[in-house]
């Protein structure tokens, strides 16, 4: 298995996609590590679908409150200028196209930007807010390992896992590379340090468009 970027480096790279003033939803798991890489002087409004804009970091012991949690049910804090609201308004923000960016994990992404990240065959299915996010958020970035634990491609020509949404992913950030989803297919944008073009091509289950210079 090729190492490429660590989870920490991946989170740092993803953080660069977040612009000043963005309203951003972070998925459960690896994406929450992005919080550590937002510069102090950059104003970003993190959205948690359970009803908060302006999530701060995780709450320290002794400063938690049972009614103040994120979408992963972890105790959190909120920033100055935050706001709380009920679930219908929270999802109006997503479905209605108000959230600028969502960064989520995935089981599979297709070359067309189709996404599978809610359930796998044989699993008890849970959906949470994943389908609502892809139905309306302006830009979706997937942050995931390039392959499964046993080395199978997660970036594929056609999904074999149950679909979350069609043609919704704009960018894929993995431990090996950064890919843009374009009308013509997946375009290589960056290679992780120490990772070869052959390694990316060999572990991707569909064609990767490689621009000159790589």
């Amino acid at each position, binding site marked *: 298995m090729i190492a490429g970027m660590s989870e920490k480096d991946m989170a740092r790279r993803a953080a660069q996609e977040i612009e000043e003033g963005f309203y951003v939803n972070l998925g459960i798991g690896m994406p929450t590590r992005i919080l550590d890489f937002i510069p102090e002087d950059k104003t970003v409004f993190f959205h*948690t*679908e*359970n*009803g*908060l804009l302006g999530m701060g970091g995780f*709450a320290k*012991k*002794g400063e*938690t*409150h*049972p*009614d*103040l*949690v994120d979408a992963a*049910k972890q*105790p959190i804090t*909120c920033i100055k200028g935050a706001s*709380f*609201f*009920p*679930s*219908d308004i*929270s*999802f109006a923000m*997503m*479905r209605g196209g108000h959230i600028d960016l969502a960064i989520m994990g995935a089981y599979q992404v297709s070359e067309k930007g189709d996404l599978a990240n809610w359930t796998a065959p044989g*699993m*008890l*299915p*849970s*959906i*949470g*807010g*994943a*389908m*609502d996010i892809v*139905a*309306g958020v302006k830009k979706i970035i997937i942050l995931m390992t390039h392959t499964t634990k046993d080395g199978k491609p997660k970036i594929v020509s056609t999904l074999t896992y*149950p*679909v*979350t*949404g*069609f043609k919704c992913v704009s960018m894929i950030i993995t431990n090996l590379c950064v890919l843009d989803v374009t009308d013509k297919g997946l375009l290589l944008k960056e290679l992780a340090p120490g990772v070869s073009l052959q390694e990316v091509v060999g572990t991707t289950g569909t064609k990767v468009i490689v621009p000159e210079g790589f």
Partner: protein
Amino acid sequence: MINKTYRTSLEALQDVKDGDVIMFGGFGLAGIPQNLIRALYEKGTKNLTVISNNPGSRLGDDEYGLAVLFKAGRVKKYIGSYPTATKSFKELYDKGEVELELVPQGTLAERIRAGGAGIGAFYVKTGAGTLLAQGKEIRIIEGEQYILEYPLGADFAFIKSYKGDIYGNLVYRYTGANFNPLMAMAADITIAETEELVDAGVLDPGTVHTPGIFVDRVVKGERYDRWYE
């Protein structure tokens, strides 16, 4: 003199009966009506249909909130978005002992709101073309696929507020609102437990989150567990 308060959680839900459909506010453990859940468990009501974002919550090896009702076999059907929140649900589901209607979280919120707001049905893009759209009517609106969703109602809504007055006006705290204000609108009878119970006129009318018209009964919660250090 109107006073919607009840003395105890158990008294507030005395007329809940086997087979009822009950909505439970809360997301994870935030804003769950923990005293009403405990009282319902004590009462022993069964064959329930439960509408709630998750069927309880797991922290470490322990399960809290609604899990107690599922474990005790009181629930025949669960409608919600996140059933994998507890192991107890999965065990029941694998044994075929509970029915599941899986609904995307935003659609769940909107269906409950529609139930309370007299909306007959509505179209959303959420889930179009996926497994969760199976059997649902499709409509193309401005070139995009939408699916038709119907409102959710219930015999009871059990909700939780931070402050409540004797008229049923409620104020939530932090992310404690979530589904609570929507469920308050959607059920035939809404029972609110509140951490603090105050007289009419104490709450600022401009900061009330749920107007009393949506709340039939109010009870001061007996005990509030804090699950985090």
